[in-house]
């Protein structure tokens, strides 16, 4: 391909990103430390902030794993002074444990609402607020319409949204930029007794303008570590969901 043509294509891709509601990427190699394994699967090799990400979890163990992964992700991609709002239907999160994932529990504002409708309203309001870095919401159902409202909200404010869908009845199409599934897997102990660092099976089921993938990731010393031996297998199965 001619260099000029390649340049035009790259420009067009950038424009497409802009048109699909994503912020133009600053520098291509801006990925925060530890997230390097995602590089080839992200649009422009940049983690999409100012977008809504969807996490699917099936059971209580899955919710715990996802909450841990999201806390770690938020701490990796945001400024340490930034404020996060965490919306949930009940009180389950144990604040002192969040610190283990690098996120300051006293910089999180917890909002507990019982009804899904109330949660969605509050999430949308929070996503519109420029004073926040991230908004995490634990929900069961997310319709296409409501996901679109959330997406429109973040396009104005540049807040990153994380929707944790706990035990959803049906995985319908949403406008979320990505869909993930996180599950805990046996930790590494290297032959030592005891339980090792948190380790997850991170499945990226879909990523708009990116590629799906699956990794085994460990959280230690306040950053993500990829387990190289089963690196980035692209499961054919998940392609269809994207």
């Amino acid at each position, binding site marked *: 391909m001619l260099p000029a043509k390649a340049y035009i294509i790259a420009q067009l891709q950038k424009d497409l990103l802009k048109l699909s509601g994503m912020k133009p990427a600053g520098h291509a190699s801006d990925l925060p430390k530890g997230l390097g394994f995602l590089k080839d699967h992200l649009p422009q090799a940049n983690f999409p902030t100012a977008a809504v990400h969807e996490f699917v979890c099936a059971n209580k163990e899955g919710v*715990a*794993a996802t909450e841990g992964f999201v806390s770690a992700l938020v701490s990796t991609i945001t400024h340490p*002074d930034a404020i996060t709002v965490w919306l949930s239907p009940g009180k389950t999160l*144990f604040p*002192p444990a969040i610190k283990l994932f690098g996120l300051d*529990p*006293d910089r999180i504002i917890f909002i507990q609402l019982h009804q899904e409708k109330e949660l969605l309203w509050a999430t949308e*309001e929070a996503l519109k607020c420029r004073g926040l870095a991230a908004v995490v919401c634990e929900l069961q159902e997310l319709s296409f319409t409501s996901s679109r409202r959330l997406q429109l909200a973040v396009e104005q404010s540049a807040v990153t949204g994380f929707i944790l869908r706990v035990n959803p009845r049906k995985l319908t199409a949403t406008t979320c930029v990505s869909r993930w599934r996180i599950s805990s897997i*046996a930790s590494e102990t290297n032959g030592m007794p005891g*339980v090792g660092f948190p380790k997850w099976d991170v499945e990226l089921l879909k990523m708009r303008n990116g590629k799906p993938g699956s990794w085994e990731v460990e959280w230690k010393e306040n950053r993500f570590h990829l387990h190289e031996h089963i690196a980035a297998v692209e499961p054919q199965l998940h392609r269809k969901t994207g």
Partner: protein
Amino acid sequence: MPKRFVAIWFRYLKTDWFVRREKALSKIPFVLASPDHGRMVVTAVNPLAEQEGICTGMLVADARVIIPSLNVLDDQPGLPEKLLGGLGEWCIRFTPIVAMDLPDGLLLDVSGCAHLWGGEQLYIEHIHKRFKELGYHVRMGMADTIGTAWAFARYGNGSAIIESNKQATALLVLPAAALRLEPETVERLHALGLRSIQHFINMPLSVLRRRFGETFITRLNQALGNEEEMITPVQPIAVYCERLTSLEPIITLTGIEMALQQLLETLCNKLLHEQKGIRTACFKCYRVDGKTATVEIGTNRATVNSKHLFKLFELKLSAIEPAFGIELFTLEAKRTEDIVSSQSTLWQQTAGLHHTELAELMDRIAGKFGAHTIKRYLPAEHYWPERSYKAAQQLLEENNVTWKVERPRPIQLLSTPAPIEVTAPVPDYPPMLFRYKGTLHKVIKADGPERIEQEWWLQQGQHRDYYVVEDQNGARYWIFRLGHYTDENYQWFLHGFFA
């Protein structure tokens, strides 16, 4: 600006109220009476009974001689205060400063109000008409001083307006009692032949003082405007209060929203000039039928952002029921605080909890769902897991203690530990199997025990031995044994889920 006052005299305050409650009473003569020294004494008379010659202070027995079929109703103690208080608040639609004038009148400070109704004559007529619609017989006087207004309400011919600075000449023809004097003083004046004010107004003050006392001079000076007189408003005047009257009663939500927007903008501008911000504000809608609907909002931080305040009110506006229409809106800043004007854009990256938009978001959520739904947690210096954190008293509370990260803690903690069935091999070893909610979990890896003792100064009970366990699926749990292994009644619980 010269002061203007209106005195309203309710000639038949109590009987009019009884007629309002029962229409049938308007056609028949009736009196109110209360027991006094074993007799029934007439305390209020309606116009029909008065025409027949019955007056207050008469005995009911005497009154029955004049009209044998006279209706006698029980008087209620404290009724004038109650009625005048209510009427006074109702009168706030005419002027913000209304005072009770017991036992049967109201005083209105109407300085600068009359022109809003197109002049003093129209203003007085309007008030008169509205009271007539309510069913009250009123007589009014308007003058520069309270004393003169009072005198013309009670002793003038119908409703009188005394022009500015004309009170001295106008008062001349009125009887001495019009000066709000004690009955004894009036009697003494009559005995001396000084029946109307013109007979003594030109006498030297020292002479009058010697014969009739200091109060007499005060009353005379107050009527003439030589001495200032204060009134106590029924509702304390709010420092930051805006009012908006509507030409026609408003019954639509759009109308209410427009009124609120207009009021908010005026109030916020006014506050901004004085470097103040609203903490609590109260929006009142005065309805045509005499009721008021009130909506109140609070903010986390003093603000003069009218758009934000409007959003807070908007959540509650649907609670206002306009009924037959709203004729007056008032917006009052009940609590204000000084604001420091901030450089808005420069500090946004590091503003953190002090960010304006964040405070506004919290206001909106607190306004819609209640402040109890918003929580922020700070570390507490306790090892007992349930007590290792506490809710912050305020959203902006500073954190002085560091979070402890030495020991593993689960990301999800059950509020009450769930009992589990366990197979454990030897004392103080982690279990091999446990059953939680019917599912069997095989423990592959385990860590522990971490013994956490009860804090005896807070709570009595057994200690907990915590284990971190990982099952065959790679899920990690936090389980504990309550009590010693050697005890008969030790128990196992699941307390949390690790990420």
